[in-house]
């Protein structure tokens, strides 16, 4: 199974090889009193941002199998693992976590194979100086996806050969998917 191979490769790559077991979120609070439920909700709101690591996901619930969060510096090594295992690049996008003052870049990979394995790689970068190395040297198809992500979020992909607006007008100096964007 490719899933296990990839998971092991990522665990070897990351400095902290502690796999995080996904906690079922919906459980609990069912038998508790209303007061307890309220307390739990209050605790949930202060949930810390996700720590780096490898997460095995239920495909039926999430639509992908492996979810990896890592430092921007580890990105290229991780993508090279996927390249070696014949993954293709599905898409690249971003998420603006404004409360945590971070921008997340999300990479989707999949395979042309019946041994299905969807891999999601996430990496976070500070919101005031978002810099992530480009993967367009490994996957030339990343070129457009990274330009699009730069358009929408202003993430700078270091080493990108042609980081100019793709979908937005050529003189655009705004990033519409940032949560503090005012049209």
């Amino acid at each position, binding site marked *: 199974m490719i899933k296990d191979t990839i998971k092991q490769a990522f665990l070897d790559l990351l400095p902290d090889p502690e796999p995080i077991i996904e906690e079922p979120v919906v459980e609990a609070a069912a038998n508790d009193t209303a007061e307890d439920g309220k307390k739990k909700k209050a605790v949930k709101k202060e949930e810390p941002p996700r720590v780096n690591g490898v997460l095995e996901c239920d495909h039926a619930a999430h639509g992908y199998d492996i979810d990896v969060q890592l430092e921007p510096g580890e990105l290229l090594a991780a993508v090279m693992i996927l390249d070696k295992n014949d993954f*293709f690049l599905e898409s690249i*996008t971003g998420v603006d976590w404004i409360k945590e003052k971070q921008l997340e870049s999300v990479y*989707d990979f999949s395979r*042309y194979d019946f041994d299905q394995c*969807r891999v999601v790689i996430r990496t976070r970068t500070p919101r005031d100086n978002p810099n992530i190395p480009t993967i367009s040297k490994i996957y030339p198809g990343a070129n457009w996806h990274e330009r699009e992500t730069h358009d929408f979020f202003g993430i700078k992909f270091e080493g990108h050969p042609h980081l100019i607006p793709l979908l*937005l007008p050529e003189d655009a100096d705004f990033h519409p*998917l940032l949560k503090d964007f005012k049209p």
Partner: protein
Amino acid sequence: MSGPIHIRSDETFTLNVGPQHPATHGVLRVKMEMDGEYIVKAETVLGYIHRMHELMGENRTYPQVLPNLSRLDYLGAMGYTHAHVLAIERAASIEVPERAEYIRVLMVELNRISSHLFWFGAFVMDLGGFTPLMYAIEDREHILDLMEAVTGSRLTYCYFRFGGLYNDVDDDFINATRAVIPRLRKSLKKYDALVTGNIIFRKRLEGIGPISAEMCRKYGATGPVARGAGLDFDVRKNEPYSVYSEFDFDIPVYHECDSLARYNVRMDEMEQSLRIIEQALDKLPEGPIMPKKKPKLIKPPKGDYYQAVETARGSFGIRIVSDGTKNAYRFKLRSPTYSNMSLFDEACEGMMIMDALAMMGSLDLVIPEIDR
């Protein structure tokens, strides 16, 4: 009179194909650096019909954004709305009645045929044959009539609902669909006799516009482009969703990697879609089309959800990042032609311009879907 014109052998000129050009079927611009008839370098310029659907997905509720999805691809809209309802059903754990699933598959496959028919006509027209377009549009019209009677629209369908459908199909629809199938089979034979063997047609496509399997992988190409490069990849088979695993159908794969291979894939796919439709009509179970228990307000629990479907153009994906409210925190659309088109710049280098345009036609571009 003036003397002979001296052209330096290393001199190139820039040619703009588009943004308004009949061969691009929409507002797409390709900046080409030409050496005579040969392309030295090409750069695709996008964004002429960019509408920021992803931001609309964030500031509207989930049901409100459903009609947006069919504005992405006006030829195969059903598949795109299918992805959205599946994504929400996955996120909010909504059960779908079996009858609704079968009707969904039926509609998506009808739409796939109508999309491929239009592509077939337009593609042959790009290569200089006008008549097949007229035949294809006539056949497509029969499918559109069928779908209009049930869904209420001809192109931009908003027929699916979270958990089911907006309208049940009646006996008229089922009988009319059964009647259309033999007609389409006959037409497919006609197209094959009329176009596929044509010597001019073959000379324009055979061995031209090579897109290798490795190139597909590096650029993330899916759909008929990947299957024309020998990759046996179809989301319906590789990652079955809805009730596709209950149907018996094949995935046509061609190994030639040229424009003709991509043409053949689509022509064979129409026959496979007809097979699915026949089986869906035979198996169509009785029952409700909406679930009994359905949340009034769609609020998926906090999390990150991805749903891929196989549309007429390839693997379309929706990523929903939910923060537990009625709007999406992030709404990402992964469109297949965006990836398929991104390899054009590299693939057309060194080709003659007319061959490159034939290859562009074989990618089956729908520009609003690239620009979103």
